């Protein structure tokens, strides 16, 4: 489903999965105007970051204001999708929909561009997740039914 920002229609990147209020606050869980472009990119299997048009600093996709120069002139920039594992944890006990996948690995990836992203990290048959291991972006539908960027361990 595509984003329809600007048309007045709400975007639904949840693919029909009901967004829950309460435990997961509805307002934050859905894309907000500053992040819809990121999720449009995910739809196209592209990983996007925010780039400051004034000082060229690259930022997390949430950024509204450049922390380097306070510019609000930020635009989307496609990332290489390559990075290394900064840290990780193999989750053995979990709640909700994620139970079917234990153990699975969450972690923080340091992208080649220097920006860090929280993500799912997926080992291969021959290479486990470890700190500093190289990873590449992929796009998968995870347990709650959302298409998300994840990172797969590189063999070489």
């Amino acid at each position, binding site marked *: 489903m595509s984003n329809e920002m600007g048309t007045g229609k709400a975007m639904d990147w949840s693919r029909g999965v009901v967004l829950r209020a309460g435990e997961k606050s509805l307002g934050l869980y859905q894309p907000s105007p500053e992040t819809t472009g990121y999720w449009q990119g995910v739809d196209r299997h592209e990983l996007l970051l925010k780039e400051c048009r004034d000082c060229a600093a690259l930022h997390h996709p949430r950024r509204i204001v450049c922390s380097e120069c306070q510019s609000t002139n930020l635009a989307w920039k496609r990332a290489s999708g390559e990075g290394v594992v900064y840290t990780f944890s193999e989750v053995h006990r979990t709640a909700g929909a994620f139970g079917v996948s234990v153990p699975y690995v969450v972690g*923080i990836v340091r992208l080649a561009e220097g920006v860090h992203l929280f993500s799912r990290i997926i080992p291969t048959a021959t290479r486990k997740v470890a700190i500093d291991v190289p990873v590449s972006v992929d796009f998968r539908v*995870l347990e709650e039914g959302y298409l998300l960027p994840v990172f797969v361990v590189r063999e070489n």
Partner: protein
Amino acid sequence: MHKLANSCAIVGMGRTICKKGDPDKKSPLQLIAEAAAIAMKEAGIKRSQVGALFTARTPRAYMTLQFNQSLLNELKLAPMFSSEITAHGAGALGAIELAVSLLDSGLIDYALCATGEASPLWIEMVEGSANWEADLQFEAPYGPTTPSIYALFAQRYMHEYGIPPEQMAKVAVENRLWALDHPHAAMRKKGPITVDDVLSSKMIASPLRLLDCAPWFPGGIASAAVITRADVARSTCEKPTYIAGFGQSSLHEWIGERMGLTGIEPAMHAPNLLRTGASVAAKQAYQMAGVSPKDVDIAETSAPFTFANLLMLEEFGFCGVGEGGSFVASGGVDYNGGLPFNTTGGYLSFGQSGQGLYLLKEVVDQIHGRAEGRPVPNVKLGLVHGHGGPLACHSVMLVSGEPVQ
């Protein structure tokens, strides 16, 4: 020494507890109002004397807007200042820190700071759910749990400094011994544990095993403190507890985005997870009081996982950066002969009750020789730490029985 050092003192504290299974189940408002009433009685003050009412984060089991106003109504106060001070679990001590600044200015004569949690009595605590501290858009859809978020710090900590799991486990063993002496500790009746027990307990989120993780305190705890200027305290209170120094530092709880922070302490030169606001807050506190870590006789931290205790010992300056593991391994916080550390049993064995001032009360009680658990002799200066978010917001306070020199 900063002018705020010794400027104010705690002249009354109250603490109430309701455990799971107690016949009269109490709401957070009941527990907090009762703790506040005890603190006011101990301080010998009237409602009309309360110039500031500060509550910390709204109890999760009492989600109302402006919880401070609920308490104000219950106690029938009409203070100059009424507010919630929210910096996750650091807000409780932070409330007292702001009160000191107000008291010292002379705008008010007494401040009442009260906080509490009773979630396990009222809420189905979803196992592992991290939805209170993960970014619901960029983190939660990947399935993080609260232990796994802390585990990301632990994994990096072990990697950067070569900390073996045995050194992490040791702090759980020592904390447990203190808990065995404390009448309210969650693990009081569970007996001592060994390093092997920790290392063979089931994996929760690597590298953290079950006994690396704090249990929830099985019930609710509320605590309250009345603070006034030192000159008032000296003339009205037999045993005031002086606020020697304090500091506070807050980062954001979403750790993916925290890695976008640099150019400011504690991430001056590069983004990282291993230097936290605790080091910033501790340094401020020591500087204010004009003391150093070696002057501290007792320390209480709000670290809810084994490794975090090691890291906090570094952040408080009890050992060098990366030396938390070797410090603990060599007896630095041993129940017998080490720095008295987490003397209620700590989060790991007393249990975690969200935010609170009950660790402050433990230090105050130890200073005045009325500890509920094992007494620590000759406590002149104590350090208490409150933190919340995954190692995001930190307050450190130094308190003493006599003004620090």
